[in-house]
């Protein structure tokens, strides 16, 4: 069996400096403790999912990594250096596509690129449009695109600046299942080709199992990392294979008490395994 349950890795004992690291990080908003004493290392080029029910602090962790928030205690490190504010080395892809409505699709994709020399800029944008299958739609405005197309454009806009890290905050949560599957395929193709480090926030077990090298399962109240799972299965993953079924069952089991806790708190809303 290729599924291994491991305790959260401790970053300081590793020889290799992790791409991203949280060391004993806590963050509160007023009386609410969003995350408590979280330690996690993310290796270069790995695809790590933060999996958990709503309100477990996974978005807070992403915002801390992004530099949108600063930790109350503990440290957030990129390549061993403290993160200070947001920046294009850790590009964030939001749940909403967050395209700029006054720009065309092509202008949005070129947003983070140097605007000069013009020919290079235009050629790069053309390549990126092709990369996300939007060749014919560069001249449109965001409001003229479907949800999936918008999110692909947002992905291309992020890849344009060649970030070392992509931080993705439930980017496909508002898409229909078919579109989501297509985007999983696109993202995986791009990730396998470009060797980016990806931190992917999701509440979907399927999504995490399909995409990740490692899955950090989170616990609620306060938000913390319950366990980190290695997923040593080749891509693309066959959802009918016994290994995948076994992994999903293992995750479900791991999350049972979290689900129960959440069900007690909120009824049955907000979380579907």
């Amino acid at each position, binding site marked *: 069996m290729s599924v291994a349950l491991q305790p959260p890795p401790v970053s300081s004992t590793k020889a290799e400096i992790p791409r991203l690291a949280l060391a004993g990080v806590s963050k509160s908003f007023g009386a609410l403790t969003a995350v408590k004493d979280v330690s996690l290392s993310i290796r270069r080029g790995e695809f790590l999912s933060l999996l958990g029910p709503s309100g477990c602090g996974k978005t807070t962790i992403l915002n801390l990594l992004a530099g949108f928030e600063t930790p109350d205690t503990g440290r957030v490190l990129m390549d061993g250096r403290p993160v200070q504010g*947001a*920046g*294009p080395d*850790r590009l*964030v892809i*939001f749940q*909403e596509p967050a395209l700029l409505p*006054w720009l065309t699709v092509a202008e949005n994709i070129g947003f983070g690129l140097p605007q000069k020399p013009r020919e290079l800029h235009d050629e790069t944008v053309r390549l990126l449009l092709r990369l996300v299958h939007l060749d014919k739609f560069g001249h449109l*405005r*965001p409001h003229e695109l479907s949800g999936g197309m918008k999110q692909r454009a947002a992905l291309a806009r992020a890849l344009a600046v060649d970030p070392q890290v992509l931080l993705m905050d439930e980017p496909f949560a508002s898409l229909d299942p078919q579109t989501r599957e297509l985007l999983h395929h696109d993202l995986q193709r791009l990730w396998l080709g470009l060797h980016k480090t990806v931190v992917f926030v999701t509440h979907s077990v399927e999504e995490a199992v399909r995409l990740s090298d490692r899955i950090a399962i989170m616990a609620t109240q306060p938000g913390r990392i319950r366990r980190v799972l290695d997923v040593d299965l080749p891509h693309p993953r066959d959802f009918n294979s016994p290994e995948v079924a076994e992994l999903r069952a293992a995750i479900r089991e791991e999350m049972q008490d979290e689900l129960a806790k959440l069900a007690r708190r909120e009824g049955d809303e907000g979380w579907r395994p």
Partner: protein
Amino acid sequence: MKTKHRSLALAIFAASVLAAASAEADSPSPAGIARNLAHGFASGDYLRALGASALRIAAGFTLAALLGGALGILQAAFTPVRRLCGPLTTGVQALPAVCWLPVALLWFGRGESAVLFCVVVGSLFAVALGVRDGLAQVPPLLRRVGQTFGLSRWSQITRITIPAALPAILAGLKQGWSFGWRALMAGELIYATAGLGRSLTAGREAGDANQVFAVMLLILFLGVAVDRLGFGLIEKRVLAKRGLASA
């Protein structure tokens, strides 16, 4: 759009008054108004009046846009300024500009400056409100887009904040213009050596109802033209780009 309804109502009102009044002998008639307009334009009187009014509104509105823009920016950027001036701006904006006329006459006497003052205070608070709310209501998500792409403070303003605030800023400018235009007409009725408001007074003084209605038509025409063709078209383009229906 409020201004549209108002000008439409005014046009219907003017037309019905004309129709009713035409029945009587000494009253204005469509033919009389047309004759008056033809004569006024031929002699150059109305062009001079239009020019004088246009010059005043241009000067007054430019000043109001600059001052109102600055006031709006200050309020959006600094919380204490917003706390202090915010309610005042909203309140004063609701005050009809004509109410400033007595103040203007007290402070500046009967003169150009008094009229200009009315135009500026009439329109600057509407501009300030539009600019303030536009800048303050930029979606936080778009700010974060700027941050994650590592924009400098300056780029954040020019590439995110201003384009995001543009529809609200335009709406403020448009409303400011329409308030300023009304203030100007009121001011010119009281004092002016030339201008459409002055021509209106002249018509009344001469007992020439045809002239009064002719000048009213000119005022209406200029007001609608700037509102629709100037601000209207720009606003339409800006909103269409963003996939927003124009109101």
